[in-house]
């Protein structure tokens, strides 16, 4: 089968199968991806840096019969890539070329994936729009008057724009799932500790979780498998065995107990009907759906804001102007705000009032989820309160991201795995809504199982539609 459409539009699964059978050559694949980048990257500002040795590496990966056969992967620019500039979208690291690979980069390369380029993000991953990037915002490929979300906005956009076959992002509180929802792609945030943070510019170390942004749930499953597992270089990675997640794909949702969360939160009136339609689909397939009452996610904003700022103020201290060529005056406003707030909340006399209290509330959230998971296998909510916002929406709104990510923050601060999959497309704007599916710790299989079943029975995944 010679694809009439661009090979760049293929899913990872399709690409691998065509490369394997020889029906697709790396030349065709790279030509099409290169073409997509050439046409739109300047306008959309998705890639900050392109690897000039990608093609060469792809050949080697194919020749070595690696699992991924040299497919081009987009990597968020806060993930260190050996010999390839890594900036975290901050001018502080404008000229930083790492001498080492993050574990994620290393595992990606070992699987035969090729780092095609480094994608834009909110500087230091601080934000939910890419508007805090010091190299300019990224535009949403689905509708360039709108933002892609963030902080992994560049990676989500690279997938949506077919500028890669799959992408890697990082999430601290919504940074994978929210841009996935806004760009109409799949974003999977693994359990905290499932994927190593080694070599990723730390934002909030206690919540940072790298994970895939892909065209389909199946693709996310393939990527996740290769990134996961204990890393001797990273002490918070779990000892848990990495299961073959693909086994979960065909399980279906029959008998699955689903709790529907956060529908009574103010501001969700517009998205609720679409989430409820999605839940009916699950119900039709045999799931048992029930409305569930959880702790108010507004508290999660407070917890997250305090813990994250505290950790940020410490994590960014290493960029002290001595070793990276640029001083701290190069930090953007958002980073400066977070450093100041975090320094304050960790200060003597205030730590008890803020940081320590936040940690206690975090434990309450953990207990609340434990309670919920006694009754439900998975929990479902909207990913974001609405569609992708217009360009410039964050101006003058320092808490923009926190409000955007409110529905995701409870699961982020508790380390739970979650996925966002497209569950509606507005035909007028071409913008998407996402459904967020959350499972207990280490149970990515449950979110995969549910997301895949839904995806196969609905029309909202644009790649599934194409096939």
């Amino acid at each position: 089968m010679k694809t009439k459409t661009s090979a760049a539009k293929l899913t990872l699964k399709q690409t691998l199968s065509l490369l394997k059978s020889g029906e697709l050559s790396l030349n065709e694949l790279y030509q099409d991806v290169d073409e997509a980048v050439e046409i739109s990257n300047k306008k959309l500002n998705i890639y900050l840096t392109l690897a000039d040795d990608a093609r060469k590496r792809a050949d080697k990966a194919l020749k070595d019969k690696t699992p991924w056969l040299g497919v081009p992967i987009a990597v968020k620019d806060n993930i260190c890539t050996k010999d390839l500039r890594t900036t975290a979208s901050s001018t502080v690291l404008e000229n930083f070329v790492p001498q080492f690979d993050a574990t994620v980069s290393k595992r990606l390369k070992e699987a035969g994936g090729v780092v095609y380029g480094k994608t834009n993000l909110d500087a230091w991953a601080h934000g939910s729009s890419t508007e805090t990037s010091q190299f300019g915002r990224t535009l949403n490929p689905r509708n360039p008057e709108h933002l892609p979300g963030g902080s992994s906005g560049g990676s989500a956009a690279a997938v949506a724009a077919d500028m890669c076959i799959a992408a890697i992002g990082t999430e601290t509180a919504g940074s994978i799932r929210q841009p996935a929802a806004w760009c109409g792609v799949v974003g999977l945030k693994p359990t905290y500790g499932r994927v190593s943070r080694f070599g990723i510019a730390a934002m909030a170390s206690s919540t940072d979780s790298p994970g895939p942004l892909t065209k389909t749930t199946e693709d996310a499953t393939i990527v996740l498998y290769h990134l996961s597992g204990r890393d001797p270089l990273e002490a918070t990675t779990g000892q848990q065995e990495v299961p073959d997640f693909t086994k979960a794909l065909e399980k279906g949702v029959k008998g699955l107990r689903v709790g529907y969360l956060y529908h009574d939160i103010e501001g969700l009136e517009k998205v609720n009907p679409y989430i409820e339609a999605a839940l009916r689909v699950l119900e039709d397939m045999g799931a048992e759906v029930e409305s569930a009452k959880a702790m108010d996610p507004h508290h999660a904003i407070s917890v997250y804001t305090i813990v994250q700022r505290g950790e940020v103020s410490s994590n960014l201290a290493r960029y002290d102007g001595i070793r990276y060529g640029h001083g701290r005056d190069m930090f953007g406003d958002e980073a400066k705000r977070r450093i100041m707030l975090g320094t304050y909340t960790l200060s003597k006399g205030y730590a008890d009032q803020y940081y320590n209290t936040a940690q206690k509330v975090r434990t309450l959230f953990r207990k609340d989820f434990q309670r919920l998971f006694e009754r439900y296998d998975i929990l479902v909510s909207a990913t974001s309160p609405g569609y992708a916002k217009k360009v410039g929406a964050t101006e003058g709104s320092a808490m923009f991201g926190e409000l955007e990510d409110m529905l995701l923050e409870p699961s982020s601060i508790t380390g739970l795995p979650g996925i966002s999959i497209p569950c509606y497309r507005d035909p007028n704007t071409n913008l998407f809504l996402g459904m967020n599916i959350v499972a207990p710790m280490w149970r990515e299989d449950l979110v995969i199982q549910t997301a895949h079943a839904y995806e196969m029975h609905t029309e909202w995944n644009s790649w599934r539609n194409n096939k």
Partner: protein
Amino acid sequence: MKNTHDYRLICGMEIHAELKTKSKMFCGCKNDPFHAPAPNTYTCPVCLGMPGGTPVANKTAVDWTIKLGLALGCKINLFSKFDRKNYFYPDLPKGYQISQYDIPFCVDGVVQTSEGPVRIRRIHLEEDTGKLLHTTVAGEKVTLIDFNRSGVPLIEIVTEPDIRTPSQAKEYGRKLRQIIRYLDIADADMEQGGMRLEANISLAPAKADELPKYKVEVKNINSFRFVEQAITYEMKRHAEILSGGGTPEQETRGWNPNTGKTFSQRAKEEAEDYRYFPDPDLPPIRLKKQALQRLKAELPELPDMIVSRWHTTYQVEPRFGELLNTTREQASWIDEIFLAAAKEGISANSLASAIVNRKIKTQVGDKPKDVLATYYAAFATEKIDASELDRAIEKVFAANPDAVAKYKAGDQKVIGFFIGQVIREIGRKADANEVRQALIAALK
């Protein structure tokens, strides 16, 4: 000076020692900063503070810290954790030091000194910093940074303010170092900075119970003798200020061994705010009771135990015993010699005295039979008949009534004089120890 006796010393010490684990505290880099072929050889993304360099705790370093705690009779916290101590300094690449704040591995121990016990408040584990080098490159004054030492495991041992004299401070430091060396967990080399001393000094009125309201910290002292000198110097300085109605400034001072004086480094008006918080990169450490048992079982015989064993088994005076077990190696060598001496009926105490006072030349590792032969050659004594000995003693006493009176008034030192006189009187190689025993009996 004139007023020192009106005050009593209140002093606590903080001692840092670099553990000699194979690798660094939180990464796999070689831990050998003093023998690195060039600056910045033993470095990696973790100890250089690169983006995403995540720490993994060195288990051996944790075990060794706990071993020291057990050796000092500390309570061990079965739940412990690492915290970030946030501050800026160019030798600290991450902008924070990984240390332990409120739950150190070890608390509440003690080190015995001849001037009384020094209680240990805590022992915690942290990482060392890099090293700054102020130099000139191409005519320009610059500061270079060597990160070979960055991330080397460092233990900090903090005492209660139990030290009462400068000499006790010195003795405490020596004893601690000896124990550390016995455990074989650190070289504790002072000159290279493998062990660093810090004394917190204040004076309280001799007669009142109240505690002083100030504290002066003297930092980075690199010998036990200097600690003694620095404390002595500070005591005089404080006494002068206090007797003049003032209060010494709360500050950090350095020690200049060339002038023999301390000097002001920085004022400490308020406690610094390090914004401690649990390091989210490192899961808390939970120790099992069995693991503690195992570490306890691995403890070697410690210096104090050896001294008392020598005393009970061989009747060796502790003052000699203490000087003969400065290292584990030396102690086991001495053990062999004492055993050989006992077989030959030689007094271990006389032998110990001869070695300590360098009456015979020996070095660690000499074969016991060679040592005994040397001892014989130097001290072959003739058995003196008891009545001959008594006669000689009587003669000496008769000739020196003043000395006898002195002794009876409590001056024990006179005994040495008597021993010499008696041996001379006998005119042959009498065993000094036997003479001493006879003299003591006669003087009763």
